[in-house]
């Protein structure tokens, strides 16, 4: 009940400073101050819910008219011609590129990131831990645009031979079939994304591994576990929810990464044949939207891009919800 009254009262107070004078004469009862402060806190929390709901609502409302006019199947078409008399657009290509590149990124960055985090917390000599952890934290903070630049200019020439080597040796397998595209392939984007999210996975995993209760670790060792067994039985189970949420955060970044991918992608020509190859080009949702930000003039066109953004939002929403469920379950087991 008090929160309800608090909500309206808090609306009139600008911030924590505005409430401070109350303390002198009314602190003894605690009533008004508590209502104001509790109310302000509640309002902020509710505001977050409102914001997220608004994101969904606005995207849906503005995507629907464009989707109604769409003459192609939104989910299975590979055409993207949102303007004009008969707009036709589908997201199949973006969905494939986005999901595949992110999958590659996760497959590379999660195992390596967890291993590096374990190294930093369990194996590294003590003189190394702080500087190395600091370096990882710094790299987690390096803006993605820098990773994009580096991928475009420094890494691409190095990766190209690797790519053609795989195509030569494993080209018979559909996933590795040569496509004639040598620059920004899905695989290359996946690798750059992996390098980009690696510090994020590492930094967050390191933090949770660091918090493993000493008693758990000592218990394992006292029972005769080797260091690796101690890690497997004490550190990893304790850190699992944290690792999962770190991975999901990283996956969210990879799915939605815009500028680095925009720098790297090779857009495909209209009407190109479908290929399962990881060495094909193609745009992700984010890069498609970003590359065409200048086209947002006509509401129908904008609607098509917003519809693509909506799919991306739903994708990240689903990923986060799954992570949440997994974490809740793990928590229930570990306590």
């Amino acid at each position, binding site marked *: 009940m008090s929160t309800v009254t608090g909500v309206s009262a808090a609306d009139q107070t600008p911030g924590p400073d505005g409430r401070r004078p109350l*303390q002198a004469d009314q602190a003894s009862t605690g009533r008004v101050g508590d209502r104001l402060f509790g109310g302000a806190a509640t309002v902020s929390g509710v505001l977050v819910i409102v914001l997220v709901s608004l994101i969904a609502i606005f995207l849906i409302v*503005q995507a629907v008219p464009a989707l109604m006019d769409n003459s192609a199947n939104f989910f299975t078409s590979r055409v993207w011609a949102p303007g004009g008399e008969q707009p036709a657009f589908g997201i199949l290509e973006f969905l494939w590129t986005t999901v595949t590149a992110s999958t590659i990124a996760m497959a590379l960055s999660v195992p*390596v990131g967890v291993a590096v985090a374990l*190294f930093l917390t369990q194996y590294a000599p003590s003189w190394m831990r702080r500087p190395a952890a600091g370096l990882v934290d710094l790299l987690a903070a*390096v803006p993605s645009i820098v990773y994009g630049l580096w991928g475009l200019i420094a890494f691409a020439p190095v990766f190209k031979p690797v790519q053609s080597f795989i195509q030569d040796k494993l080209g018979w397998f559909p996933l590795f079939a040569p496509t004639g595209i040598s620059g920004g392939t899905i695989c290359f984007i996946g690798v750059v994304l992996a390098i980009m999210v690696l510090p994020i996975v590492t930094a967050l995993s390191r933090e949770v591994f660091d918090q493993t209760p000493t008693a758990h670790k000592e218990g394992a060792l006292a029972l005769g576990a080797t260091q690796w*067994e101690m*890690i497997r039985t004490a550190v990893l189970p304790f850190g699992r929810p944290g690792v999962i949420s770190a991975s999901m955060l990283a996956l*969210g970044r990879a799915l939605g*990464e815009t500028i680095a991918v925009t720098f790297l992608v090779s857009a495909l020509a209209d009407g190109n044949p479908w290929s399962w190859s990881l060495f094909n080009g193609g745009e992700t949702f984010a890069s498609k939207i970003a590359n065409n930000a200048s086209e947002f003039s006509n509401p129908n066109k904008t609607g098509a891009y917003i519809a693509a953004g909506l799919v991306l939002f739903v994708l990240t929403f689903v990923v986060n919800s799954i992570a*949440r469920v997994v974490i809740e379950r793990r928590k229930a087991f570990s306590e």
Partner: protein
Amino acid sequence: MSTATARSVPHDQVVPGEISTPPGGRSGRDALSEMSNPHRARAVKDVVAKVVMWAAFFLAMVPLVWILGTVVAKGFHMLTTATWWTGNQRNVNSDDFGGGARHAIEGTLQMVGFTALIAVPIGILTAVYLVEYGRGRLAKAISFTVDILSGVPSIVAALFIYAVWVTAFGFSRSGFAAALALVLLMIPVIVRSTEEMLKLVPNELREAAYALGVPKWATVVKIVLRTAFSGIVTGVLLGIARVMGETAPLLILAPYTKNFQRDLFNGNFPTLPMMINQDRGDFALATAAERMWGAALTLILLVLLLNVIGRAIAHFGAVKK
């Protein structure tokens, strides 16, 4: 903490600092020679795990150090030119050398400052709600939506603001619109870091305050928030650093200008990421490429500076505690 742990463990394999011993160490080899098969397998596994961890670390460090090295090597020269910290890019064409980045530096700082002004109070209060007040369904729902918000890609946040600010309200693109998108990205960072810090405040402190008859809000403001203050500031600075390099919202909402521009609400707005993006278009030209790396290095330095200050405050605060 973890070092102390390892040291207190009476097990020769975990003593830190023993890199001179080959992986597996003495006990590993003893196990190999003296123990029966299952034990041997365990020892081998232990050694393999150790080798894998070391290898993973060095493997991961290669690209990461390479990136920093590239940016510093290619961008450093630009930062030493006199005009870089004072001028702007007005009338500087792609094939002209130099020019300044001050317009973009100021623009970026102004934009993230404005973003923080909105996002920090909301973020901290939400965290206070979640830790100190929240029980039951509402708290769960808020915590869940914060997770969702932290997963929202920056381009989606930008599209949302575009849909509201430009399409629905009919305003034009501006620095302010981009700052609004950044607010969405910053709030979850602040909430989560503040939440962690508030959880670290021992319950005894709260109980002691209550026992003295201090009302809850005063306990939160004067005891809990004050104890966690340095940690919260660190989280805020890291949050600012996080949104500082976001480019997608700027691409969609805040077109770049080469001039000085202090008005967030009207017209184009200069920012470092957009300056990089601008010169990226002509990176085949040495002049543009150099400017691009210079802007990238400047951006990294700003982020680094915020990180260092944040950590220094955390360190300082921790000592005081």
